């Protein structure tokens, strides 16, 4: 019982239901209703991840305080510019002529169905993959070189699955970020005072900032999933990035953690940090991002404000499939 999606993609019933859920969330947003970021039944966070026991996830949260316009500073300058970025793996064109703009003080979203090329885009930007073609300009200069070079230029990122140094303590993980910051000499966009602190105190402050309340001395590998995400975010922030790239950061977080995350992103944006966000939780994306780029099969199929994107027919087709859309 599958329908053909755009470019012949097969849509499974589960995928179709997921698409309907996504669109329903969009329309509720447009209508001004409140939207639960966490699960309504307290079992999953909406991305299929178990959010664990307890009351978390049951409390509906209003997106109104987060504002649909993303809340970033209006005077943000263009920090990242991607032009015609392309990469292929064997016979698969993973990205084709991708264009993207990210401004300081804004949260920019990258969305798209699974396999659209979102994480590949992040890997190209962070230097883990070498694109076939295209130019990337970061802070007024071409972005080239090894991942370590790009990190020192101010790129911080997290991964879809948290990738902490599991045998190292939480604190040691964070100190890696602090070391990158000291090496590059970048100031902390979101709190310039942090740069004057010793590394350990800085790491402790940033851990507290992201809401990590656990023991910093335990091996990172022993942390529960939600804390892994939180610590990975803290590690990226310790590196004093001017662009923070987050790959599905709310996946696996419970409702409280997701709410804290959204609040933190808004604060970081207000402080001038540029955030590039991949996320499947549409309510969160629509509430947090000022601009959204939609990828499908490696191509940009839409770009604009959340309102523009959610009214875009091509985007609707990409999520629902043509047959489902007709139905």
């Amino acid at each position, binding site marked *: 019982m599958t329908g053909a999606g755009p470019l012949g993609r097969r849509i499974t019933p589960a995928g179709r239901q997921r698409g309907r859920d996504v669109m329903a969330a969009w329309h509720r947003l447009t209508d001004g209703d409140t939207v639960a970021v966490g699960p309504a039944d307290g079992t999953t966070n909406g991305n299929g991840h178990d959010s664990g026991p307890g009351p978390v996830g049951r409390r509906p949260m209003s997106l109104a305080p987060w504002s649909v316009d993303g809340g970033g500073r209006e005077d943000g300058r263009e920090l990242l510019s991607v032009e015609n970025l392309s990469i292929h793996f064997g016979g698969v064109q993973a990205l084709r002529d991708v264009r993207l703009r990210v401004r300081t003080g804004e949260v920019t979203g990258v969305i798209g169905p699974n396999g659209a090329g979102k994480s590949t885009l992040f890997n190209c930007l962070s*230097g*883990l993959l070498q694109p076939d073609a295209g130019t990337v300009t970061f802070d007024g200069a071409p972005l080239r070189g090894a*991942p370590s070079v790009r990190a020192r230029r101010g790129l911080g990122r997290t991964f879809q699955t948290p*990738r902490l140094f599991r045998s190292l303590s939480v604190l040691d993980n964070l100190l890696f970020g602090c070391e990158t910051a000291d090496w590059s000499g970048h100031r902390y966009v979101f709190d310039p005072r942090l740069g004057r602190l010793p590394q350990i105190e800085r790491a402790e402050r940033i851990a507290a900032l992201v809401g990590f309340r656990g023991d910093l001395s335990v*091996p990172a*590998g022993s942390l529960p999933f939600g804390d892994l995400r939180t610590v990975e975010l803290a590690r990226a922030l310790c590196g004093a990035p001017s662009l923070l790239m987050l790959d599905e950061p709310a996946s696996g977080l419970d409702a409280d953690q997701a709410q804290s995350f959204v609040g933190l992103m808004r604060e970081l944006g207000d402080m001038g940090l540029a955030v590039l966000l991949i996320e499947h939780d549409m309510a969160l994306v629509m509430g947090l991002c000022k601009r959204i780029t939609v990828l499908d099969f490696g191509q940009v199929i839409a770009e604009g404000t959340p309102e523009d994107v959610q009214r875009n027919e091509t985007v609707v087709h990409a999520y629902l499939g043509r047959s489902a859309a007709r139905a």
Partner: protein
Amino acid sequence: MSKLLQTVIIGTVTGSLYSLLALGMVLVYRTTGVLNIAHGGIGVMAGFVAWDLVQLRHWPYYAGLLVGVSFAVLVGLAFERFVVRRLPNAGSRTVATLGLFLLAQGVVFVVPWWSNNSAQVFPSPFTGRVVSIPGADFAVSYDQIVLVGTVVLLFLGLQFLLRRTRLGMAMRAVSDDPAASRLMGVREELVAPVVWAMAFGIAGLSVMLIAPINLLENTSIVAFTLKALAVTFVGGLVSLPLTVLGATVLALLEAFTQIYAADIRGLPSAWPFILMVAVLVIRLIRPTKALDEQALAAA
């Protein structure tokens, strides 16, 4: 009492021997994820280089030792640069170390004047000097004391390196997640050569310290390396303290059965296998994740 003391001392010395070899293997596995099968083979080859210079060309002992260790270090650097770096994952790199082991064995047998048909005597400046144990009809050689002392220093040095230095942290980070470590500014291409050079240098030094006690002989040192491999499993291939503990326990078991249960033939040789089976059974009973976390915590 004298017999008991003698047994404990023999066990401690032999345990140090196993530890010395095992620590080098744990260093490589913990920082690269590669099981370095070539460890003993490289050590023997470096040992023969040093033996050649000292015994055949009459170089000063320490100069020969230095060249032997340097040779092993260079082999480590070359192996990392031309083999390890070109292979995609830890599995294929482990297979490559097997190839290097066979190559090293071949070199030792091929060089005609090394005459590896029989064991070679490789005396150190301490050879012949002993310390008598008070109250026991037993003496410990200086070479054995140097061996035990080297293990203690190596253990403390590696612990300090991996826990307290930036280089050690970078090694562990690369081992845990190479991609994430690159994003955190770690240059893997600078860290990996250090690991391999250190490990091979330790392998060379180990054999040069063992040779004055047990002769420089290919088969026995490779057999020691296999026993050392068994004890690395006690610490999950990552924990230095548990590896040393495993090595000491194995050596003491061997010593006690050799002295107190000499009529049970084959038991001393069976202990490495019994130890490995015991580790596997424990891993079956207790979740592997918990054991690994304990090993890392103890590391």
